[in-house]
């Protein structure tokens, strides 16, 4: 198929360039759609261009990757694109998810304002993501990376120009991460003597010594895009009021794909990433911290969007933990978990969007009993929730087991953290499911008449849930057919996990979560309050209070530091301004005024000054006569 496309378009670089350009064209078309049928037009554009992109990506994947350079006519500057291995796998996966998300978005904006700009930016993001996945040159990668940041900022700004706090926060945090990435890229390129990833991959750099800086910076950049701590705090902020499709697309899938893709490339291709090395430890700690604290924050949320957004953070922790082990099984688990997460987290966001679409709220205090009103949505939700909780047999279970396996091998503490995360994940989803779908409805009068969601929203949800089931029931497909060859690792174990003890422990944790949920329900009086006994436990309560007030948010620390710095700068600048505006002119005019008062018009004084001047000149001559003054 790729050959056909190549034959149609000529050089292999052309289809790759079109993968960047096509989405942009689609976005422009969607944006230009006007009139009464604009919803249908957008849907058509989303389907057409999403499918075209998917076809291109699939053809690339099935063709075994490609490489090509677009010479820009300037010596030494070429736009080199190369697709192989993990990138080739990620392209169709991203294309698939994008198609689903685009359909969902077109449907979501059917009756809402602002869809045009949103679709435009969404499509451009796809182009940027494709570019980032295909880029061979680190500089080109950085270009697309920044492009992704720009579209993210734009999407967050749409419709909220007055309240742009989340957008600024995202820009600041992701921008910081991108700056660090730039630093890392510079260091890496300098160390390797080349900016081409395929060239570096031939002779990977050592992650010790001078390479540690480049490696750590690049990993931080990748983590920032994926939304790991400490670059996470814009996500809950954006979750409060961003459109639901945004949440599904960005924190849900596209950003994770980009971030984890890069992290995997760094770990497998660019650097010799030895298990147990300080760099490995660094990534694992970051992953463990992210998963633990992310889910701990998710546990206490009373709003569906915020709850899901904290999970989006927490899940990144698992992926990083897996990749950070540096073990083949861990990396495979991380990538697999990323793919699973993209499916079920997007599914969860779509379901949440459907609920919001029908009820007009995501506040769990007001929701309840939707099981009957929205059965399809509820079914999809439960499939995804079981997956994310890692119930044995689901796709999330299999990827988590791989990560647990690797984590246990790397250090017990990481395994314990991962288990604790699994416990809280399960507990929070029990709470969410119970509150939204099982308890009696608490919606205000007049909004009780809830119906099933629209077809345009249901189809993506069902598709995603089906993919989850497929990946869980037949995990050899993703693991052995897709990920294994992509990572160049033929020995990934598919099927039921080998280590029965770990499965037992995981199951025990899930049962514990269920027991805790039942206890909490009884104690708190309802599913919503099921986690309150943890929330308000002595000692933990204070920590949560601090976190809720944003005192533990690195962004706020950064901002406080930045504010302090800018205040200092302003003070210095004020001082300099004062010096030039007040002090110097004041001194000059003050001297002038003093002199002016001194020359008071008296003839005698004039004469005395003149005589004093004569004395001064005589002094010069006296010194000259004595030989004191010489050239």
């Amino acid at each position, binding site marked *: 198929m790729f050959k056909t496309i190549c034959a149609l378009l000529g050089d292999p670089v052309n289809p790759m360039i079109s993968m960047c350009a096509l989405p942009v064209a689609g976005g422009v078309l969607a944006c230009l759609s006007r009139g009464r049928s604009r919803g249908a037009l957008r849907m058509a554009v989303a389907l057409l261009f999403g499918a075209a992109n998917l076809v291109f990506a699939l053809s690339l994947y099935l063709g075994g990757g490609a490489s090509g350079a677009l010479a820009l006519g300037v010596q030494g500057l070429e736009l080199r694109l190369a697709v192989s291995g993990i990138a080739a796998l990620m392209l169709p996966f991203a294309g698939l998810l994008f198609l689903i998300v685009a359909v969902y978005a077109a449907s979501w904006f059917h009756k809402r304002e602002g869809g045009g700009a949103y679709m435009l930016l969404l499509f451009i993001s796809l182009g940027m993501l494709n570019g980032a996945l295909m880029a061979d040159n680190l500089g080109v990668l950085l270009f697309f990376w920044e492009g992704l940041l720009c579209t993210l900022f734009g999407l967050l700004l749409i419709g909220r120009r007055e309240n742009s706090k989340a957008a600024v926060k995202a820009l600041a945090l992701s921008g910081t991460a991108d700056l660090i990435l730039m630093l890392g890229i510079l260091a890496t390129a300098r160390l390797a003597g080349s900016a081409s990833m395929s060239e570096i991959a031939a002779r990977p750099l050592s992650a010790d010594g001078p390479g540690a800086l480049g490696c750590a910076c690049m990993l931080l950049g990748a983590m920032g895009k994926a939304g790991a701590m400490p670059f996470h705090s814009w996500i809950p902020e954006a979750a409060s009021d961003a459109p639901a499709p945004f949440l599904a697309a960005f924190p849900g899938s596209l950003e994770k794909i980009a971030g984890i893709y890069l992290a995997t490339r760094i770990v497998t291709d660019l650097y010799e990433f030895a298990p147990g090395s300080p760099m490995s430890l660094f990534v694992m700690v970051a992953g463990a911290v992210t998963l633990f604290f992310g889910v701990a924050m998710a546990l206490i949320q009373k709003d569906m969007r915020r709850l899901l957004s904290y999970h989006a953070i927490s899940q990144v922790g698992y992926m990083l933990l897996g990749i950070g082990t540096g073990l083949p099984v861990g990396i495979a688990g991380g990538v697999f978990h990323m793919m699973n997460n993209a499916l079920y987290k997007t599914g969860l966001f779509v379901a949440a969007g459907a609920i919001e679409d029908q009820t007009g709220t995501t506040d769990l205090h007001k929701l309840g009993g939707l099981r009957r009103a929205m059965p399809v949505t509820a079914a999809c939700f439960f499939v995804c929730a079981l997956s994310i909780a890692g119930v044995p047999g689901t796709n999330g279970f299999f990827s988590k087991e791989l990560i647990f396996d690797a984590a246990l091998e790397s250090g017990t503490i990481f395994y314990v953290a991962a288990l604790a995360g699994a416990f809280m994940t399960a507990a929070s989803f029990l709470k969410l499911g119970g509150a939204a779908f099982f308890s009696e409805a608490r919606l205000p009068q007049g909004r009780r008449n809830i119906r099933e969601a629209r077809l345009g929203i249901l189809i993506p949800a069902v598709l995603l849930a089906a993919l989850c089931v497929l990946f869980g029931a037949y995990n050899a497909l993703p693991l052995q057919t897709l990920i294994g060859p992509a990572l160049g690792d033929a020995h990934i174990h598919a099927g039921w996990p080998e280590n029965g003890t770990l499965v037992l422990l995981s199951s025990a944790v899930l049962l514990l979560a269920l027991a805790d949920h039942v206890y909490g329900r009884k104690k708190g009086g309802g599913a919503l309050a099921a986690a309150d006994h943890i929330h308000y436990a002595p000692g933990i309560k204070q920590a949560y209070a601090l976190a809720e007030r944003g005192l533990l948010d690195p962004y706020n620390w950064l901002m406080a530091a930045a504010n302090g710095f800018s205040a200092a700068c302003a003070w210095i600048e004020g001082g300099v301004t004062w010096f030039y505006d007040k002090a110097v002119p004041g001194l000059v005019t003050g001297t*002038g005024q003093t002199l002016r008062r001194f020359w008071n018009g008296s003839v005698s004084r004039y004469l005395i000054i003149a005589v*004093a001047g*004569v004395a001064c000149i005589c002094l*010069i001559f006296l010194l000259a006569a004595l030989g004191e003054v010489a050239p």
Partner: protein
Amino acid sequence: MSSILNGIPYVFVAAPLFAFILNNAVPRERMRSHAVALSGGVAALQLAAAILGFALLAASGRGEVRFGLFWSVDAAGAAYLRVNLVSLFLLLCVGFVALASALTAAKTIDDHRCSFANLFMALLLGMNGMLLATDLFTLYVFLEITGTASFVLIAMYKSSKGLEGAFKYLTMSALATIMMLTGLALLFMHTGSLAFADLGAAALSGASGEMDILCYGALALLISGFAIKAGAAPFHSWLPDAHQSADTAVSILLSGIVIKIAGAYGFIVLVELFGDLYAVRLSVAALGVATIAFGALLALVQTHFKRIAAYSSVSQVGYILFGIAAGSPLGLVGALLHVFSHAAFKSTLFSGAAALHEQLGTLDIEQMGGLQKNMPVTGFASVTSFLSAAGVPPFAGFWSKLLILISLWQAGWIGLSAAALGLSILTGAYFLRLQKKVFFGPRNPRWDDVKEIGGTIRASQIVLSAVNLGAGLCFPLVLLYLQSIGLI
């Protein structure tokens, strides 16, 4: 050609003298309306003669032209007058400023026109005589004539302020006279002659090579005397008082040329004769630094238009002193060119003052503002003079200051050249303040009906602005000439 060249120097003495006689021979009632025109004619004649003479002398390759007034200069020991390139250039400046002054005087001077013409001619004679002299004592005599004519010109209207300014100038000049004559007497005691040819550092040190303490004293006193005449700080006290109180046409003369001929030319002569003595150049440079700084600082806080212009003259004289103190031919050229560019822009500024005074009746800049609309020509002329004074390329002032800075650098006074450069910021500051207060900003409603000045003052403003800019634009030619004679 040679005979024309030999004849030209006589113009500088004969023309004013003849005009003086004519002015007094014809009955006053009849002369009154023509007196200023007569003065202007003499000035124009002098300008033309100086330009012609300069060109001829430069082409002839002779160093100087000697002549006597109705006496033979060939006899041994006979006194003689002479013109050389330096004095011809300064005679040109004198003629130029005198013409500008006459153009302004045609408008500003109503009464005393005949007296003005008389004193104007006396002043011209005094300055020309100084430039033609070949003897320090002759120089002194003509300096006194210049001074006396200036006092009377300032006091001419016998207004309270004019008399006060003249009195202060006269008192300070009396001190200068005492200083200079004492210095001359001490020099004469040592050398037995005051002719330039017999003087010099070598003549003072004599056979032993050791210089008499009296000679040092004499030089110090001479420098002090010329410093008073030049208005160098801290001897400048009289200058703003005198220049402010005089009629504007007289102020143009005083600020534009008198302080430079009476003061700066004295320094030129002294440095030419005694420049080998480091103390001479050092004290001139020290005077220069003090003059620039004091002048600029005081100009910054004035509220009277002409007083600002007067302090600006003080400040600019400092630059001229710098050029002279460098002691090199390049420094001298820089100083002379600055004399010219300062003469041009200061005449422009004072013409503006005359226009403002005629149209507004006041020169208090606090009461002005926004006059650019009413008086566009005056405003524009003032801007050209400001740019030239601040040393903005390509105006004339830029080039002359540049040459002075280069010569200071070459003389090894790097700190001084940096100071000169730094202090020129103050020049920009006070001129900007003047522009802002007078021509820009909100307009005082009192001046809503003010019209632009017409007649000779407007003509002189236009010509002078053209000179400010044109001289600067032609400057590369001057540089080429300097290069051809090996100065740069």
